């Protein structure tokens, strides 16, 4: 039943779920975003920066798609006046909203990666597909969990575009997509360590470089731990938001 609830909330609130909307937003947009970054970075003289863009931007592009999809659901839920009246746990309907974004996220990252591999086959020559798949799934999970936490903020503020911009900018600047996390000032380095994608990108770079040993496992475990952290934060935030609404400190 959870899958059905999830699908119905997805169909009801994810407004990109039309043939054209889905194709353009989930598939074309991240690819165009990737191409744009690659074209711009062509003029960069530093080979490391260029390599970062080529390898990391597919994940960032897909993360903006996932964030847009998740956050709009929380916005439209308020806009449509959906008042959940349940005898099940309030977290049931909350997490049902997330499930269908997992295949979305995986698809979006995969399409961007395929373009990256097509454009730069040498960069992926040593990559093993199963370990790469683990990276894609782990990062999809952690990005969705992070977005679910941002969804609580969207639901409270009843605005989604500013939250989307802030969330995307944070992921772009602090997770090592372009700027290595080692070069961030110490406080930002701490923030970086608890953001989704940071550890996943480290694992991914190891996969691309042909390593898949202990370092890879540690990074993937860290990425999934961060995901778990956001599952807990999002759940606690949602329950707190409901309590605030119930006590009339926020509109019902």
């Amino acid at each position, binding site marked *: *039943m959870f899958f059905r609830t999830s699908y*119905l909330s997805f169909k*009801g609130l994810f407004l990109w779920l039309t043939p054209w909307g889905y194709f353009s937003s989930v598939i074309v947009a991240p690819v165009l975003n990737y191409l744009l970054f690659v074209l711009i970075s062509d003029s960069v003289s530093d080979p490391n920066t260029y390599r970062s863009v080529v390898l990391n931007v597919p994940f960032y592009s897909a993360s903006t798609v996932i964030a847009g999809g998740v956050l709009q659901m929380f916005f439209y839920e308020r806009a449509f006046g959906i008042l959940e009246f349940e*005898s099940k746990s309030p977290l049931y309907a909350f997490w049902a909203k997330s499930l269908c974004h997992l295949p979305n996220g995986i698809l979006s990252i995969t399409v961007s990666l395929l373009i990256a591999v097509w454009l730069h086959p040498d960069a992926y020559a040593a990559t093993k597909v199963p370990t790469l798949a683990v990276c894609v799934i782990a990062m999809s999970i952690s990005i969705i969990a992070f977005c679910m936490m941002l969804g609580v903020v969207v639901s409270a503020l009843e605005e989604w575009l500013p939250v989307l911009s802030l969330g995307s900018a944070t992921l772009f600047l602090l997770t090592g997509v372009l700027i290595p996390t080692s070069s961030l000032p110490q406080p930002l380095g701490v923030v970086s360590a608890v953001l989704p994608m940071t550890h996943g990108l480290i694992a991914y770079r190891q996969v691309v470089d042909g390593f898949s040993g202990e370092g890879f496992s540690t990074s993937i475990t860290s990425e999934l731990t961060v995901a778990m952290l956001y599952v807990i934060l999002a759940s606690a935030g949602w329950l707190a938001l409901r309590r605030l609404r119930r006590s009339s400190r926020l509109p019902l």
Partner: protein
Amino acid sequence: MTAIFCEDLKHEYVERKTGRRRQSLAGISIAVPRGAIFGLLGPNGAGKTTSVRIFTTLLKASGGAARVLDLDVNRSGREIRSRIGVAFGGDKGFFGRLTGRQNLEYFGSLYGLSRSTLGVQIDRVLGIMELNSRADGKVATYSIGMKQRLHLARALLADPEVVFLDEPTVGLDPEIAQILRQHIQRLKAAGKTIFLTTHYMLEADQLCDQISIICNGRVVASGAPAQLKSGFGRLKVIECLLRELDKARLERVRTFEGVASVDVEERSSFPCAKVFCDESIDTSTVVEGFGKENLLGSPTVRTQTLEEAYLDIVRKSQ
């Protein structure tokens, strides 16, 4: 046996814009017997929807006690929600891109019903609300009347013992509103307790066994519709169609002993004075008060309507 009960129920909130504390319920007491249709009437902002939200455990009361099916609303929220249904009227509250059936499936899944039970229940409530033929159409294409019926269908999904209906016929054309009222009466016949808020006095008069009128967060009158209509000892209304309105005479009639109030409205381009008075007042006294020569036709005597009683009560309490 009481299905819904509250005593000295209070609700306060902080206004977002001004930061001021506002009281939406100033201590109301209500007792609704099982199997009855109870109507909560009142002007906009009186506290009707707040009361419904507290009873349905969506809002927390600031003070007092409230029980539904003998369960405390603050402590047994989940159990209460599993045994009641609620229909918030209006155009919103559904996924427009989903069909009526899919909407019911979604909301039903939150009740914890199994898929097979839910399927049976959805067919049942769609049948009750006569929505079968449009069940697989997108809700965005539904008329307001169909959405209202879908709200009611949603409220009945888990076969609840108590049904809360917040302005269920608002914005409906008279024919659809009448059909909905018939559905509400059928629910009562099936043993359900109905808690209804409405602005329509005719609806309350037609449906309710008990009524409370709420104004500024306080219950200002309670009783059966007949009791309210004859409230404050006023049992009749004398209507006099006048050639012209003589204000001095009007004021004099207002001072007659036994006359509670006199309203004037225009009828067929002539002023019509409605004298609300008790049985001790004789029609001829009123006629003389306005002047026999000033009357068009004979005065009519009738009992007060619920709307007149309501307006009088609300006016006095404001």
